[in-house]
């Protein structure tokens, strides 16, 4: 129980600390440094308002720089170095990248990651949109939503266990306990398939796990967006004699585009960070390697920091287009 009390203590200290920081720093800013009184009141208010955002953002910026930005540069540095026997590092330039390019496993991971990036966000968003559209029209839609949303709450590790049971295969003369094989045999399949070991296609069986998890998230947000569409635009379209498809694609879609973008981005990020599913279910074997797992493998199994960091940088480079596109959209919205 001790850590629990410690935890509660930390929450209280942390919370009051945060609140105190924001409150007091504001106080100091407004009363001490730039008091909105006296001869320079106007200038002071302006100055205080110049400072304030940075006060508000300092803790976040500090944590972000330390926990996310610094490791990026550290990784970049490491990707250009190589460990020498006897500890220490030496500068090797792009040598690690060269070695990585010669590794067939790397290209396999590359191909699979592309597949993941193409398939998972699209499928999860698509299913989510479909589910949102359908559930909003029926009486028990709320319940249906809850149930489809539920996998969100399940850990990747838990999901790996769940789906391992779905994909379970046993020899043909035994009763199947994996439902997928049971269905497959019932539909006339010749022999039980070990789904996770069929090269190339097994990637999709892994993706199914993540799609299953993420669809609910997409559905809930998109459903909210669909409900947020002003009724009168749709009514007007109906009066004009638009078909269901037209209403959906011409009227609804443009209005929820920004939300779709948010959902898409969120899922894309999760896809990039995902490694638990692959790690727990196949560990990248049978040609299911993905970059994050490849990196983990290089860092902690082959103990090859150079290539591990280089592959991490590749992930960074890969997401850059999405990143730029996202950033541009964000800025357009700001205007």
């Amino acid at each position, binding site marked *: 129980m*001790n850590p629990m009390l410690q935890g509660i203590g930390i929450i209280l200290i942390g919370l009051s600390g945060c609140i105190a920081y924001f409150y007091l720093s504001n106080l100091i800013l407004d009363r001490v440094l730039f008091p909105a009184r006296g001869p320079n009141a106007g200038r002071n208010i302006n100055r205080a308002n110049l400072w304030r955002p940075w006060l508000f953002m300092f803790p976040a910026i500090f944590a972000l720089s330390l926990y996310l930005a610094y490791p990026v540069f550290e990784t970049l540095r490491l990707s250009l170095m190589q460990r020498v026997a006897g500890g220490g590092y030496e500068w090797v330039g792009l040598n690690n990248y060269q070695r990585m390019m010669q590794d067939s*496993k790397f290209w396999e991971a590359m191909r699979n990651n592309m597949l993941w990036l193409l398939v998972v966000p699209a499928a999860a968003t698509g299913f989510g949109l479909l589910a949102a559209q359908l559930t909003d029209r029926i009486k028990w839609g709320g319940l249906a939503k809850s149930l489809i949303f539920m996998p969100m709450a399940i850990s990747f590790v838990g999901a790996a266990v769940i789906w391992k049971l779905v994909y379970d295969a046993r*020899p043909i003369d035994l009763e199947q306990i994996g439902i997928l094989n049971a269905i497959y045999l019932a539909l006339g399949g010749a022999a039980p398939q070990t789904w996770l*070991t069929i090269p190339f296609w097994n990637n999709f069986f892994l993706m199914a796990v993540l799609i299953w998890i993420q669809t609910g998230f997409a559905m809930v947000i998109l459903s909210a967006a669909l409900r947020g569409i002003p009724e009168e635009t749709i009514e007007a379209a109906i009066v004009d004699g638009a078909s269901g498809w037209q209403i959906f694609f011409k009227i609804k879609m443009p209005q929820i585009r920004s939300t779709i973008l948010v959902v898409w981005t969120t899922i894309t990020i999760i896809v990039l960070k995902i490694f638990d599913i692959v790690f727990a279910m196949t*560990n990248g*074997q049978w040609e299911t390697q993905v970059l994050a797992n490849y990196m983990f493998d290089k860092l902690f199994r*082959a103990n090859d920091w150079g290539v591990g960091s280089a592959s991490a940088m590749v992930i960074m480079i890969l997401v850059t287009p999405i990143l730029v596109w996202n950033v541009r959209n964000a800025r357009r919205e700001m205007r």
Partner: protein
Amino acid sequence: MRKSLLTGAATLALSAGTAHAELVTVFGPWLGPDQENVEAVLDGFAAATGYEVSYVGSDSFEQQIMIDAEAGSAPNVAVFPQPGLAADMASNGFLTPLPDGTADWVRDNYAAGQSWVDLGTFTGADGSEDLYGFFYKVDVKSLVWYVPENFEDAGYEVPTTMEELKALTEQIASEGETPWCIGLGSGGATGWPATDWVEDLMLRTQSPEVYDQWVTNEIPFNDPKVVEAIEEFGYFAKNDDFVSGGANAVASSDFRDSPKGLFASPPQCYLHHQASFIPSFFPEGTIIGEDADFFYFPAYEGKDLGQPVLGAGTLWGITSDSEGARALIEYLETPEANEIWMQLTGFLTPHKGVDTSLFSDPTLKKMNDILLGATTFRFDGSDLMPGAVGAGAFWTGMVDYTGGEPAQDVADDIQSAWETIK
């Protein structure tokens, strides 16, 4: 915050017993049944010395120990399943040399002592050679497990040569039964059981000298001799009629579940090639020697290579030096430390000073005899190869091979992985 409170309390408390209670942390690859066994030994150490000791096991030991060592949060003592990994860590300066005199002790008290010293000696960060690893708990790998009563029902004889073993395999298959259970799944280490097969077959198709050259890469991994051994394994594993579940199931079935097919009704298989530790994973209540037994994985009569035995062992190294860590290594030298585990399951030891009547069952003695009767003893090759090969490319290569890739391509891949780390 908690620590300071505790130390404050400790200085206040005048209990004499805790004065010496330094904590020794041990991190190893064992979970489940083996974890209970190692904890029994560590309890013996705690009782004998008064140190507190805690053991943590992990299924992804290889990765976790790296993370911890890099970050400086390593345990006092780590139990390495592969010397290759320990060698990597020693060269990066993460291991402390064992206390002076340990090497002499091993030389004098272990059967084939010099070879155990050689296996635990690595080049440190400063370039000088030292003994870093202490071998405790040895496995014999050249074993084939079977259920004697099933052999009786079917009228099979235990084969004594490789030719007979192959004939038996074909006979079982021709009778519509499945001869072998082979499973390579092992979480983050999937593929390793196949490396044992290939090493055993290397020793049965080539001379020990060739084996040694292969392990050090003097002859490349894609040499025809090695490819031949891989294809020899393929004879058993890539034939749908020879393995339970078909060749495709080999890589995906877990090595811990695999032997359960021997005990199924009707039997899913009759033979299982695995090291001496596997009874830990037999169904509960299985009596070794009656419900299940083993025979020596035989050598070819047609090749004059004697009776080679493949073995392995875990080596204990100090990853964070302390009095307690050194005391633990010293404790492992005592007959008592060996005898505690001998009375449990799946433990063999090269220690010459132990009372072998204490083995929990006669089969362990039988294994020790296999160990002693070997004309050639060789250590698990993948454990001696650098981590990136022995605990990486070789594993994944074997998975690819059972998944359908040609042996030559797999061997080429492994060789190129080896070349990138030279």
